[in-house]
C-alpha cells in the first residue's frame, strides 16, 4: 500500500475533535492545482508537504490537463487538450446562398485539415466545388464513381481547372462534403482527398484525390454549388495535430 493510500473515506460528526492526522487526510485528498509541472514537482516531498505516492492527482494550468502519479512518473488522465483533431471553425450556411467563403480556416498552426459539410440542403441536385483563396487555375483531381444499382464504374477529372469541381454534393434533402486538405498554408503544392455518397436517382459513391499545383499559402476556401443555392448545414474545419 502506498504512502497516500486510504483505508476508509471518513465522515466526521458535529463537535468531533479532529486529530492532525485526520486534518491532514482531509486536506490531502483534494486535487491540487499547479501553474505548471515545475510547480507540481516542487509541491510534494518537502518540509511540511505531502509525500508523493501512487494515485496522486494534480491539475496543471499550463497544459489544461489532469495528471496522476503512477508511482514512478506523472501521466495525463485522458487525452491531452491539443491531441488529435481540433475544431477550428463552424460556419452555419445562411438561406439560399450561391457560395460560402470561410476565412481564417488555415494557418501555420496545423499542416493538415479536415473540412466537413452536413445538415443542409441544396435548391436542386448539384456538385459542390472547392476553391482555395482566390486561385482560379491549377486544380487537378481524379474522381472514381460507382453506381450503386449496377456497380458500373465511371470517372471524371479536373485538369488545370478553376476549382475542385466535385468534392461534395447537394440535393433537395442533403449536403455532403468530406475533404482532407494537406498543406494549404505551406509554401508547397496542396493535396486533397475525400469521399461521399450521392442519394440521387442514379446514386453513386465518389472517391477523389488531387492537388492544387502552386506554392501559394492559403488561409481561406470557398464552396460553390454547380447550380442553384445552398441553405443550412454547417461547414466545420478541423486541424490535425502536427
Amino acid at each position, binding site marked *: 500500500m502506498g504512502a497516500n493510500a486510504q483505508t476508509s473515506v471518513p465522515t466526521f460528526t458535529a463537535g468531533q475533535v479532529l486529530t492532525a492526522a485526520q486534518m491532514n487526510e482531509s486536506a490531502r485528498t483534494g486535487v491540487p492545482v499547479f501553474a505548471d509541472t515545475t510547480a507540481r514537482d516542487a509541491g510534494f516531498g518537502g518540509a511540511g508537504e505531502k509525500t508523493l505516492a501512487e494515485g496522486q492527482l494534480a491539475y496543471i494550468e499550463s497544459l489544461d490537463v489532469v495528471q496522476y502519479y503512477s508511482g514512478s512518473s506523472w501521466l495525463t488522465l485522458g487525452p491531452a487538450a491539443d491531441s488529435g483533431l481540433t475544431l477550428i471553425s463552424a*460556419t*452555419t*450556411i*445562411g*438561406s*439560399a*446562398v*450561391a*457560395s*460560402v*467563403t*470561410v*476565412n481564417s480556416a488555415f494557418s501555420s498552426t496545423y499542416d493538415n485539415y479536415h473540412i466537413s459539410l452536413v445538415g443542409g440542403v441544396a435548391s436542386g441536385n*448539384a*456538385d459542390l*466545388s472547392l476553391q482555395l483563396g482566390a486561385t*482560379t487555375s491549377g486544380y487537378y483531381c481524379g474522381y472514381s464513381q*460507382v453506381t450503386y444499382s*449496377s*456497380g*458500373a*464504374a*465511371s470517372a*471524371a477529372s479536373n485538369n488545370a*481547372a*478553376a*476549382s475542385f*469541381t466535385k468534392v461534395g454534393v447537394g440535393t433537395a434533402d442533403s449536403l455532403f462534403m468530406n475533404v482532407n486538405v494537406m498543406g494549404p498554408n505551406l509554401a508547397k503544392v496542396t493535396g486533397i482527398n475525400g469521399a461521399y455518397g450521392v442519394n440521387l436517382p442514379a446514386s453513386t459513391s465518389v472517391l477523389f484525390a488531387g492537388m492544387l499545383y502552386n506554392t501559394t499559402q492559403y488561409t481561406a476556401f470557398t464552396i*460553390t454549388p*454547380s*447550380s442553384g*443555392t445552398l441553405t443550412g448545414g454547417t461547414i466545420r474545419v478541423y486541424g490535425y495535430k502536427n
Partner: protein
Amino acid sequence: MTHRIQIDDEVREATREEAAAIDSAHVAAAAQAQQEKDKAASVASARTKLAALGLTEAEVTALLGA
C-alpha cells in the same frame, strides 16, 4: 443574374465581379456534366457494338470497365 453569397457569417448580394465568377463556374460545371454524359453514352454505345461482334460480357468489361 444576381446572387447572394456568404462570407463567414455575413450574407450579402454578390458584386458584379463575384456574380460573374459564379455564373462562369456554373457554365463550366454544366459543360463538364455534359462531357461526362457524352462519355457515358459513348461507352454504352461501344458496349452494344462489341456485344454485337460476339464479345462476351466479361470480355466487354475487360475492355471498357464495369
